[in-house]
């Protein structure tokens, strides 16, 4: 089987399961009370959280201002579509570029930091972007948002892709998510991925082992920002607009919550599971009560108290109950 340099397969069983769920979703969603638009949101936030977990779960760098790069991507896409009149694909490429450039600039100030200083600095930079998006009214539309980013109809030869339909946008987002899953899986199982985990375990020792820690941190932050930019661009495509609120401290906290809720510290799949749970719970609670954030906060406190390794951690523990101890010892502990 085709493997990466660290011996991990390029395509795994878990991936095939995900792809099966992902690409059949519009066929069965309506029978279980879900709908296409919800699927788009889950795909977008899964993408966002996967990129975020490169930092949090793999490198151990807590970024609390990641909404900035998501937002920059959303504005980048919107401006490309409206001001330059590009196609959605070019718009998304520009969104990725915008996310990468802004994250790359910020990372220049961050890459020699860790722990609480790193967290507080990311908050500060996140707030700067949020603040600018509100104040630069002529550029971003201020608090009203950047509006009228219409979903286009794209003609590729005889093929006509109508982005006006939610099903089309869903499949588009699903394909991007599937590609990104494969790409990021490959990244974390490359020598670069090993360097990330070395930095998480012990930064000083990683440096002694010859890694250029500063450069690795800068690169992973920029890469994570690029993925966030792509997710932001997709959201702008879906919503036909971009707003400052995705950059707020709360919104940046939500992606951390998604990642941990799923179990980003213990599994590659944590962020995907977490994003799905987060969006589903928001819909269910939101339908039942106006104050869904209150219940959300309580739910989150309970998770942090009793199952901080999230859904994947809980699953592994449950599965562990049914496995004979001998086999449990034999199977190596999976590092995310």
């Amino acid at each position: 089987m085709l493997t990466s340099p660290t011996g991990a397969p390029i395509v795994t069983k878990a991936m095939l399961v995900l792809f099966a769920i992902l690409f059949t979703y519009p066929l069965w969603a309506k029978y279980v009370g879900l709908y296409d638009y919800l699927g788009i949101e889950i795909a977008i936030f899964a993408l966002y959280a996967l990129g975020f977990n490169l930092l949090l779960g793999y490198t151990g760098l807590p970024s609390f201002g990641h909404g900035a790069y998501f937002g920059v991507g959303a504005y980048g896409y919107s401006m490309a579509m409206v001001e330059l009149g590009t196609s959605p694909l070019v718009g998304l490429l520009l969104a990725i570029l915008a996310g990468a450039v802004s994250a790359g600039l910020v990372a220049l100030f961050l890459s020699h930091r860790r722990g609480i200083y790193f967290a507080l600095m990311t908050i500060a930079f996140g707030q700067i972007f949020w603040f600018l998006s509100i104040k630069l009214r002529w550029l971003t539309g201020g608090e009203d948002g950047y509006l009228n980013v219409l979903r286009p109809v794209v003609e590729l030869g005889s093929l006509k892709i109508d982005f006006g339909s939610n099903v089309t946008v869903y499949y588009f987002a699903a394909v991007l998510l599937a590609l990104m899953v494969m790409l990021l899986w490959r990244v974390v199982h490359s020598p670069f991925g090993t360097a990330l985990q070395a930095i998480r375990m012990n930064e000083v020792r990683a440096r002694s082992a010859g890694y250029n820690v500063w450069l690795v941190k800068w690169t992973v932050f920029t890469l994570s920002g690029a993925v966030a930019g792509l997710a932001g661009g997709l959201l702008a495509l879906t919503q036909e607009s971009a707003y400052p609120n995705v950059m707020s401290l709360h919104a940046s906290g939500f992606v951390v919550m998604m990642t941990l809720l799923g179990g980003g510290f213990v599994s590659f799949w944590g962020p995907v599971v977490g994003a799905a749970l987060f969006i589903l719970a928001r819909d269910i609670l939101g339908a039942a009560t106006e104050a869904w954030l209150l219940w959300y906060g309580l739910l989150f406190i309970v998770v942090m108290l009793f199952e901080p390794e999230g859904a994947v951690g809980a699953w592994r523990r449950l599965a562990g109950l049914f496995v004979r101890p001998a086999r449990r010892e034999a199977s190596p502990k999976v590092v995310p």
Partner: protein
Amino acid sequence: MGMVSSLLPHLINGLALGLLFALIALGFTLIVSVMEVINLAHGSLFALGAYIAMVIISPDLVMLGAAGELYGDLPLAVRYVIALVLAPLVIAVIGFGLEILLRRTYGKKKEYGLLLTFGAALVFEEAIRLVWGPAERVLPVPPGITGGFIFNGMIYSNYRIYAMVFGAAAIGVVWLFLNRTPYGAIIKAGAHDDEMVRALGINLPRLRMLVFGFGAALAAVAGIILTPIWGLRPHVGVDATIPAFLIIVLGGIGSFWGAVFAGLLVGLVVGITGAYASDWSILSMYILLIVVLTFRSRGLLGKKTALEL
């Protein structure tokens, strides 16, 4: 009219703001030093303290019956002082509760504790919205400290001067508490080496609980003084926490004078920028942070700590 005298009211605004930011930051930094937890609910406790003070100052008298009428006859100044004492105590008790919840996360990844406080922040903010509604409310203050006066052709607000004096006094009290009482010595020892403190026979869990409550109470005091200037909204806490975070980083984590100095610096920068370009006053604070940290990576007075690992 000279340049200085035209700037003076803005300087006073800046000083008042800076001292109160420093007070929030001190509570925050105490909690970080002793428990190694970034308390993201700090701003919500700030807001909640102000809302509770509002209730204590002007309670729903009909609901309270005869006792309420008696209480309502008390002068506003008396009720204000009662609120200034009682509301921080209530917040301290809530702080105790939060610390008890946090105990399960000690010794695990730092993010768990941090995210627990983020959850708590969501709960407090939504609870405020549910109880007091999303609209802006007013925290009443006694007539003696409202109004203003004209000096040298410039208008000065009495309340800003009161806030400045109060902020300075409160910081002084915290300093005396930390440096001139045995409790302060224990807290500082706990921040330095908690294992050793435990070995000396001091009840470490109780120490942590008290420090968390004390830090929360400081946020509540700052909330009661600041919200008459800012207005009382459910998310006013965020406006207060962000400057407090910045001040901690700017001053250096765990440093008392670093927090006070950085608080004053941020207050003055915000105040003076506010005089010329009020829209950009908040941004100037971030730029200050980036400039300082580019040259002094641990803030102005920070030392290397275990928190960076």
